[in-house]
Each structure stands twice: as structure tokens, then as C-alpha cells.
């Protein structure tokens, strides 16, 4: 049976909609796409239009003539690259540590002999449901005492604790699906658990680890409240704080804001579109098969 036949059989299982119904489905799909992507496309268009066009009515849907003045503004006038550098340092360090700690914990929980593993998992999940506002005050007091305000490390440590539950959970699910016999064969050859993890399990699970790392990266890249509370100068503030502080003296610089939005979001959007299959199955615990 070739692919065509299989897919035909699949569609015969459900309801056969009349052609009017199919048109409705395509129409709804179009609405969903416009609704999801439209606002960001408008933001992109805005970033390429000169200010006098942005403030004129009716709005110009397509930028013509195209200008890059807003991109020049944010890098030359507002040193936007400083925020980008800070964000990259914090986010990369967070992602690396999250994957290192979280994947080892997930490996131990999934494949080693640990009593009460589901209780520990439940505990870790419970922590991820804490309202973050409940820890920002006490952490601030601690940060003041340690002199950790306005440092990268304070953000990295906090994001690590916030990201670990997700990493542990997603990788736990994945490691569980690898057959146990692989570990046992390695153990017979005399390998210790840590060696089994680094030499066998980790290389086998690279796609899952990369996906999880990306989820972690996006979460840290987008975090706002802690960055706002713990950093106060451009040497350590991250991108979200930088964008939130984009306000003009007399008017709101919508063009500059749009340009900054595009700069920080385009890489994420491209990353998500490239890895979308893995992200969806990672987020939904592998329930989406296609």
C-alpha cells in the first residue's frame, strides 16, 4: 500500500464533509493563520516605514519607500546591542546549566533505581506552579545582602531554578521511552551510570535535548519581571527590559519599538518554524504523532 492509499483510508474513517464544509475548513484555517501572524507582520511593516507615514492616516499597509532609520536609531542612538549581548550571555549560560543539571536528574529519575521517583517528579512540577511574584521579594533581599544586584549571575541562578522543572519533565518522558536493555548491556561491559549517560543515552537523545534546550532558551530570553527587578543599568539589563524602557520624551517611538521587536523576535520565530515539529511534541508530551 502506498502513501496515497493510506491517507485515503484515513480520511474515510471520519466524516466526509460536503464541499461546502471543506471550504469552511480552509476558510477557518486562513483566519487562524492571519490572526496568528498578522500582528507581527504589521510590526515588521511598521519597522520599515518613516515616522511621518506612521503618523498619517490612512495607515500604509506596505512600507514604501522602505527606510532603515529605525534600525539605525536603536543601535546607534539607544545602544540596543548592549542589551542583546547581556541577553545572549544570560540566556546561553542558563540554557547550558539547565540542560546539564536537568538532563542528569531526568536520567536518574527515568532509568536508575530511585525510590519515590513520581513523588519527586510531582514535587518538581509543583514548584513550577509557584507564582513568581512570591519569590521576587525574598530574592531581592538576598541579592542586596550578597551584593548580587546588577550581575549576570543573579539572573542565571534564578532562571536556572525556573527552567529546571520543564527540562526535567520533558527529558524524563523522553528517556523513559528508550529501551532499558541498552543500559543493561552497557552495565555488563562495566560502565558506570554516569558513563552510560554521557556515552550512550545523551548522544541517543540529542534531538530531544536540543528541543528542550530551545524551550529553555525561549523562556529565559523572554523573561521580564526578574530582569526588571534585579538590574538597573544598561551593562546588565536584558532585551525585554530594554524594550520596555523605550519611551520618548514627547511621543512614543513606535517605529523604533517595532524595529527592536523585529530584531529580538525574528530569530525566535525562525527557530520555532524550523523546529516546530519537535517543539510541539516536546510541549505536548509526544501526544502529537504526525
Amino acid at each position, binding site marked *: 500500500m502506498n502513501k496515497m492509499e493510506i491517507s485515503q483510508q484515513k480520511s474515510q474513517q471520519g466524516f466526509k*464533509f460536503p464541499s461546502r464544509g471543506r471550504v469552511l475548513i480552509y476558510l477557518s*484555517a486562513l483566519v487562524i493563520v492571519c490572526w496568528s501572524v498578522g500582528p507581527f507582520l504589521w510590526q515588521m511593516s511598521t519597522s520599515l516605514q518613516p515616522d511621518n507615514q506612521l503618523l498619517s492616516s490612512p495607515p500604509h499597509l506596505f512600507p514604501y519607500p522602505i527606510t532603515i532609520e529605525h534600525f539605525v536609531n536603536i543601535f546607534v542612538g539607544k545602544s540596543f546591542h548592549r542589551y542583546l549581548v547581556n541577553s545572549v550571555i544570560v540566556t546561553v549560560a542558563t540554557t547550558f546549566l539547565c540542560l546539564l543539571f536537568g538532563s542528569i536528574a531526568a536520567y536518574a529519575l527515568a532509568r536508575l533505581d530511585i525510590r519515590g521517583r513520581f513523588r519527586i517528579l510531582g514535587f518538581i512540577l509543583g*514548584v513550577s506552579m509557584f507564582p513568581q511574584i512570591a519569590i521576587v521579594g525574598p530574592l531581592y533581599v538576598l541579592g542586596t545582602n550578597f551584593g548580587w544586584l546588577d550581575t549576570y549571575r543573579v539572573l542565571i541562578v534564578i532562571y536556572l531554578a525556573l527552567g529546571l522543572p520543564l527540562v526535567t519533565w520533558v527529558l524524563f518522558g523522553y528517556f523513559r521511552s528508550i529501551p532499558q536493555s541498552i543500559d543493561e548491556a552497557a552495565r555488563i561491559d562495566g560502565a558506570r551510570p554516569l558513563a552510560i549517560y554521557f556515552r550512550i543515552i545523551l548522544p541517543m537523545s540529542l534531538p530531544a535535548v536540543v528541543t528542550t534546550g530551545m524551550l529553555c532558551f525561549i523562556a529565559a530570553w523572554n523573561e521580564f519581571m526578574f530582569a526588571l527587578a534585579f538590574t538597573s543599568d544598561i551593562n546588565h539589563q536584558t532585551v525585554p527590559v530594554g524594550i520596555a524602557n523605550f519611551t520618548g520624551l514627547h511621543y512614543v517611538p513606535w517605529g523604533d519599538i517595532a524595529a527592536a521587536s523585529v530584531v529580538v523576535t525574528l530569530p525566535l520565530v525562525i527557530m520555532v518554524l524550523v523546529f516546530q515539529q519537535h517543539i510541539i511534541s516536546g510541549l505536548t508530551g509526544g501526544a502529537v504523532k504526525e
Partner: protein
Amino acid sequence: MAITEVEIHTRTLRARNIRFRFWRPGPFVFLLPTLASIGAIAIYRVLLGLWLSLRDTTLASPTDNFIGLGNYSQIFSDSQFWNAWIHTIQFTAASTLLETLFGLMMALILAEQFRGRGLVRAAMLVPWAIPTVVTSKMFGWLFDGQNGIVNYLLRVVGLIQHNIHWIGSPDFALTTIIIADVWKTTPFMALLLLAGLQTIPGSLAEASVIDGANPWQHFWYVRLPLLTPTLLIASMFRALDAFRIFDLVYVLTGGGPADATEVLSTLTYKQLFSALQVGYGSALATIMFITEIVIAAIFGVFLLRKMREVGQ
């Protein structure tokens, strides 16, 4: 043959493991970094927050005394608190309801086979990936009172005569925030529900067709009951998340105009970092924490009842 040999070998290995466990580091060591970071940052801080909430600590002056439940009684007679409380509940209820409803509709469409489905699904991840701060600024521009494209489109269609000051007026600001949140989170909700829908076997649809049910009846009597646990879990996570909304409000309106969009998180944040009332702010945070537990418990009861029904 080989399998039994492996089994014997692992058994002896396990036996050796048990014998030497008292000096060999157990697998628990692998959990230590994770549990230690979570414990130090989250658990310990929450307990410290509880402790601080019973004191009149401020960073503005050196007062730092134990005052029992003084902060809490002050909160309950604080009109600002009740104002923020009402907005938070309104926001949580409206956004959870709308996102579940629209999310379900999107999921039902995506569950059908059609060309370009993967493309639609990829597009739906875009709002989720965009930083919330960017979303806030984006909606600030879309719903701008003077040059916003939303006002323009509504005027062209003829729904409004004059521009609406969406963000600048107390009547519309919270609505704008709800719309922004629905935009950002609904697609994600839809993907979760889609995952649930796809675990329902296709043979049930076949059975419905044979029994002469129409698509609507199939949805109402077969799919919806089977999807209810997923719906409950997804909307619970959504409600817990919506209740602690911060970024959108803080960046889009800052709680204004005239406190019309102040929510509990922004109020707490301002108490902690503008008024420097660490004790009072911690008490607010503790109240939020307790409310979250109550929300989770309510959903939990429904979920348990539902699962018991299914079990019978």
C-alpha cells in the same frame, strides 16, 4: 538464551550494588544539583516570604519587627487591594474562558485532514514564541488611540464613528489586555487540545457514522466527554498562569489609567520595589500564592469527579 544470561548478570550486578551501597554514591547524587537549585531559589524563598509577610520590614527605613497578621488585616481593609483583586479575577475568568473556547474551535479545525495543515500549525507557534514585552508594545501600537490600525479598520468597516482610546480609557484598557492575552495564548491552548483530540481513536468516528450521527452529535456526545479531562487540565494551567499576569499589564498600561487595570502582581511589585514595603508586599504575594492553591484545588475536585465518572 542471551536474554536470560543478561538477566542473571544484571541480577548479580544489582546484588553487588546493594552490598556496596553504603559507600557508593547512590543515584540520588544525580538529582542533587536540580533539587538544590530549586530548593534554594523556590522553596526556601517562599518560606522566607511567609516569614517576611509577618513583619513590618521596609527598605525605606530600618523598622523590622514581628507584627503577626498585621499586614493581612491591613490588606483586607485596603481598597487598592480589592480593586486589584477584582481586576485579576475578571482577567483570569475572561481570558481562561475565551482561550479555552477559541482554542477548542481551532483544535477541532486542525484535527481535520486538509492540505497545508502543518503550515497552519507552525504559524500558530508564532504568538507563543514572541516575548510578552514585545506583545505588549505591539498591541500598544495596534490599539493606539490616534494612529492605531485597529481603530482604522473598525472605522472602515463602520463599527465605530470616532477613534476609541483603547489603552487610555478606563472602560477599554482591561478589554485590550484581555484581547492581547487571548491572541498570545489561544494558539498554544489549541495545540494542547489538539494533542488530546488526537488520542481519541478514529474508530469512534467510524462508529458514529454507522450509527447515523451527524458531526455535531459526534462532537457533543463522543468527543467532548472524552476530551473533558484534557480541557480541565489545560484550562487549569491557563487559569493559574492568568492569575499571575504581570508583563502585559506592566508594559501596556502600568496598571493605569486611574488604576483601572491594576492586578495583584503589579500591585505587589509596586509595593515591593517602588514603596519598598517588603513585609506588606510579601503578605500580598502570600495571598496570591494561597489563591493559586485554591484555584488548583477547585479544578482538581472537578477533575477527580470526572475521572471517577469515566471509571464507573
